[in-house]
């Protein structure tokens, strides 16, 4: 495997459309739940251990070669909010387009054919990692990092938060990210033997409720 491929995939400039999503931060800022670096950190920590863990588990399982359509259904079951399912599939479709151009592979083409309106982003991410010669742990790292870097970057724009402070938040979360990746990879390994029910399913009620509130806004800066 090429270690540099991980940097290409994890780069925020990878053209997969992630910059248009705030991971729930836009709604949380407007509702007054994120007001500064400390509340951003608490938000990111909660998102990491819920949505981040679930995404990392799905991505690691896909990178292991589990059936992407089974994983796509597992992602639906773990995403009660219709707004988040729509956002997840939109992001998945954009990532798949970029991935097929970057690391062409029959598995990616097959998924695009089976889910023309988009598969859930973490499933595509895991399959992309596989196509790039990366492993389940790499896929989980990408998912976990995205789960907190999106809200941190968005909060810099939404609150005019000092970018140095936002980056310091991400650095402070690094040990928690390592821990989340380890849990996701262990769960994905269990899922190989026991099926998708063994994958993480941690939920975050305010992220799910907030996503529905955000979807109904007439004007918004971010897509989710």
């Amino acid at each position: 495997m090429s270690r540099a491929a991980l940097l290409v995939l994890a780069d925020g400039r990878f053209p997969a459309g992630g910059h248009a999503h705030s991971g729930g931060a836009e709604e949380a800022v407007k509702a007054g739940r994120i007001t500064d670096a400390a509340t951003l950190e608490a938000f990111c920590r909660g998102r990491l251990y819920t949505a981040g863990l679930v995404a990392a588990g799905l991505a690691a399982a896909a990178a292991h070669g589990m059936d992407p359509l089974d994983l796509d259904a597992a992602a639906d079951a773990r995403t009660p909010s219709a707004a988040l399912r729509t956002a997840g599939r939109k992001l998945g479709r954009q990532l798949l387009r970029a991935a097929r151009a970057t690391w062409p592979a029959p598995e990616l083409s097959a998924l695009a054919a089976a889910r023309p309106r988009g598969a859930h982003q973490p499933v595509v991410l895991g399959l992309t990692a596989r196509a790039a010669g990366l492993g389940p742990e790499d896929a989980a790292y990408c998912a976990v990092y995205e789960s907190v870097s999106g809200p941190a970057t968005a909060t810099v724009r939404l609150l005019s938060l000092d970018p140095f402070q936002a980056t310091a938040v991400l650095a402070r979360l690094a040990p928690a990210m390592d821990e989340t990746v380890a849990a996701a990879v262990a769960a994905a390994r269990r899922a190989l033997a026991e099926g998708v029910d063994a994958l993480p399913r941690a939920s975050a009620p305010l992220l799910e409720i907030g996503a529905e509130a955000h979807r109904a806004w007439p004007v918004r800066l971010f897509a989710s």
Partner: protein
Amino acid sequence: MTAEAVAVAPVGVPAPASALSESALPESAPPAGPAPTGIRATARITARRHGSGATVLPVLEGEGPLAVRRIRGADGEARVALVGAMSAPLGGDRLTVRAAAEDEARLRVTSTAATIALPGQRGEPAYYDVELTVGQGAALHWLPEQLISARGSDLHVTTRADVTEDGVLVLREEQVLGRSGETPGRLTSRMTIWIAGRTLLDQELSCGPGAPAGWDGPAVLGGLRALGQLLVVRPEFTEAPVQPCMLGEHASLTPLAGPAALVTAVARDGLAVRRVLDTALESLMR
């Protein structure tokens, strides 16, 4: 039937990969270690459609703290109330309720009071499992009162429902973190719903002392202390799914990826949650 305190033989569980995998991915098997002494009790309810159109209850068995009473029904529907016969679950207890609405039967289960999770003598966790099955053309309404997580308790709640393609399930789950002004206990709650063998919903919430950090923060519960969910599975939703909408400041209605709708509400107290769920239930069953 009287409660029997039984010693549970240690059961081997795989060692967790990390503190997080232990807390975020709890195994539903009882933990290894010194044999916990707690109550093991199972209540069983089976509803069957009688030739006359009425629903009968060929199985109605309580045990220990789980007492069951048939109450007055209506329109071919059998009604059962879970009656709190003693204080439970305490740490170390393992309680199970199995309720089945067989083909064409109509069953409604309620409870007479809130369930309070309390600490045990040795700090062991307690387990409360609810297993629901809904047959062809059957309807099961599972509407218990709140679960209150008292200080020092550690409870794992697992709710599983298996619904056939054209079954109806109405399921309410409400959790209050701590009695009035009290620090909550540890509560892990998993809900898994299958329709015709496919997973419709699989989610787990972990909160209280020792839960993964951030549970009380702006992404998860935001310092609020009451949470409720109302799940409605109805075949009609295949053709006409509900439209997502807000039902209050921290409450939403969303269609699931199947013939079902889910209301999620977070609020300062259990009463505010109940108000949202009651209003939603009325409109979803119309």
